[in-house]
């Protein structure tokens, strides 16, 4: 029987890659659990609250978007809107061209992965350098990130050392500290030579227009200390209603993502630098990006827009751990990706219609989600969509249910099948042309068929 692509990917995954992904995910999950529950009196209540706040934002974007635009403009920020990936990339390019800028350093932002910004800028003669260590390594490897927080969870030190050697970053040395120091030295000069710094935003307060950008490396801070122009690409759903809500979300984000109370750098950016400050951007732009988010908003899966990109769901997901991020063939892997990627694809949903099937619906993702997204329910909705739209990728490996439904709504036929199934105990089931049965028996034995036994016992037992 044909099996799903993601299953095949998992089967073919190199053992050392699988081990790296598994260990990294497991560690991330375990540490998260302790840092949330040891420190905070009622962490689960916080997740529910945060989910309600985000759901409120998502369902009131028609109010909050104009509000945030006004707040940003009042802070001296130029606001741009980009309905598509192309528009977002063009907006960045035209800001650069207006400044005569040819060098940009960028911090990690998943939106820019969606739009493939770096590739677009390079094609248009702009040097665009990733500064997050993991993303920098992905860039020089011409690879793709495989986790939304830990981009090179799938790589080991030997691969990185070879990569550095091939890219003129010193003779082969796979000591992690040496690798990090070399990247520090190399990127330092790049920051200082760049014209523009580009970041995303983890949150934007609709009340004050403050952008909140968090990192551990200090790379986004360096972008905003070394360059003269700041561009922030922000998905339209990244808003929070009030500044005070940051107190809640900042307590959830780092704990969920990297098991820290706070990341090393939590930066609140309200506008270009203060006049007396020698370093930093004199000009600030925010590009509010749609790129399919309004399609998600329209769907019956809009809860996924609550996502704050922490990666906790990836870390706990048993399927992600087996398959790794690249199996999902899209910017967002793991449980969040299985919902978001097919939806962001809009009309190209069929190309990713198998992603929602890659789940045993165990629900561990929802349990760890800091905004309580009911991911299994959303996966189920997307499976219904895949079936309705007859998406071939979704149908692979799925036993047809029409005949079964008929059987299960006709008690006489059902009872006959219960009895008739006993034949299976006498047949070489491995040879039966039933794909599902074969797939089962390739890995597991089947229990003895005992259809009708319970009903017979009930009927025949001595009456009281």
């Amino acid at each position, binding site marked *: 029987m044909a099996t799903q692509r993601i299953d095949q990917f998992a089967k073919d995954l190199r053992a050392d890659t699988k081990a790296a992904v598994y260990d990294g995910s497991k560690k991330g999950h375990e540490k998260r659990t302790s840092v949330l529950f040891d420190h905070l009196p009622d962490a689960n209540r916080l997740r529910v609250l945060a989910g309600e706040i985000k759901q409120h934002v998502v369902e009131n974007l028609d109010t909050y978007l104009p509000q945030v635009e006004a707040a940003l403009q009042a802070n001296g920020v130029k606001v741009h809107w980009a309905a598509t990936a192309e528009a977002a990339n063009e907006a960045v390019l035209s800001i650069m061209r207006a400044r005569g800028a040819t060098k940009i350093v960028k911090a990690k932002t998943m939106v820019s992965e969606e739009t493939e910004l770096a590739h677009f800028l390079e094609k248009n003669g702009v040097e665009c350098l990733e500064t997050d260590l993991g993303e920098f390594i992905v860039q020089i490897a011409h690879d793709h990130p495989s986790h939304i927080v830990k981009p090179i969870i799938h790589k080991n030190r030997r691969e990185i050392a070879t990569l550095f050697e091939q890219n003129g970053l010193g003779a082969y040395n796979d000591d992690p500290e040496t690798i990090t120091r070399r990247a520090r030295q190399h990127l330092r000069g790049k920051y200082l030579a760049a014209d523009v710094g580009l970041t995303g935003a983890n949150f934007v307060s609709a009340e004050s227009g403050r952008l909140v950008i968090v990192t551990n490396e200090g790379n986004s801070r360096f972008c905003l200390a070394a360059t003269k122009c700041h561009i922030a690409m922000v998905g339209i759903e990244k808003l929070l209603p009030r500044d005070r809500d940051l107190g809640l979300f900042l307590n959830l984000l780092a704990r969920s993502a990297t098991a820290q109370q706070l990341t090393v750098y939590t930066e609140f950016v309200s506008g270009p630098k203060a006049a007396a400050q020698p370093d930093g951007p004199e000009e600030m732009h925010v590009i509010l990006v749609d790129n399919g988010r309004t399609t998600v908003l329209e769907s019956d899966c809009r809860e996924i827009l609550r996502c704050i990109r922490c990666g906790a769901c990836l870390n706990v997901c048993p399927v992600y751990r087996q398959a790794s991020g690249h199996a999902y063939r899209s910017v967002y892997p793991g449980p969040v990706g299985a919902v978001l990627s097919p939806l962001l694809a809009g009309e190209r949903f069929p190309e990713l219609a198998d992603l929602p099937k890659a789940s045993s619906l165990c629900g561990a993702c929802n349990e760890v989600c800091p905004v309580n997204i009911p991911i299994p329910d959303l996966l189920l909705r997307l499976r219904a969509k895949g079936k309705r739209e007859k998406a071939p990728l979704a149908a692979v490996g799925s036993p047809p249910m029409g005949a*079964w439904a008929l059987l*299960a709504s006709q008690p006489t036929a059902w009872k006959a099948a219960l009895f008739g199934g006993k034949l299976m105990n006498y047949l070489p089931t491995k040879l039966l042309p039933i794909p*599902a049965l074969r797939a089962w028996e390739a890995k597991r034995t*089947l229990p003895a068929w005992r259809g009708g036994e319970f*009903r017979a016992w009930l009927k025949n037992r001595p009456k009281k």
Partner: protein
Amino acid sequence: MNLAHRVLPGPDKRVQLMATCLCDAFYDDVARATVEVLEYLGCAVEFPEGQTCCGQPAFNGGDWPASRKVVRHTLQTFAGDVPVIVPSGSCAAMLFHGAPLEFEKEVDLPAVQQLADRTWELADFIVNGLGVTTWPGRFDATIALHRACHTRGTKTCDSAIALLNSIPGIKVVPVGEVEQCCGFGGTFSVSFPNISSSMGELKLEHIRAAKPDLLVSPDMSCMMHLSGLAQKEGHPIKTMHVAQVLRDALKNGKLL
């Protein structure tokens, strides 16, 4: 999941039993043990003969029209207002969570909700429906409890552990990485067989490391998958349903 408003048994303790299609086909002793346990607790158990399946396989596969057809049949079969007891976390969850989801745009949603409000998984019913928190008899074994995923958000596993822990002779041992799924996932087990069996093997590793005599679960689907894997690789494990342990404890204590 909001399970706060479920129908409690009346003074006559009349209940309906949904045996589940899996027990109907493979695990008749689990359904039998469920009846014996409920009757021991003074319940009058009705088994609506026309029952077939809760509709979960088609629901999970995305064929909601097919699933709804089966659920509608189930609604008819279980007409009434007494609690419906299900010896399966996943079938119970299908009725109180899955069915309302796939019927949210249907005119017969109220009927589906009515059934949802009457549906109880067995261990949850014993502890929180009947108020029974300790179990008599005897059962000498070191037990690992498999926390079937569809019991997430419910009181089933806590109820099962409370009952098991109270039985003289039982020792419940913890299992590592308890939140990781066994890999069954319904049709997932056949459309993603590699991932499903890798997950199962990891689960078996953790279980074996805890050295239990017996693996117990509120859900036979997980047990079918894990015991099938274990047997295929030549190292079978012993599995039982919670109902069977409770029934056997009574028998050992000469209470049944």
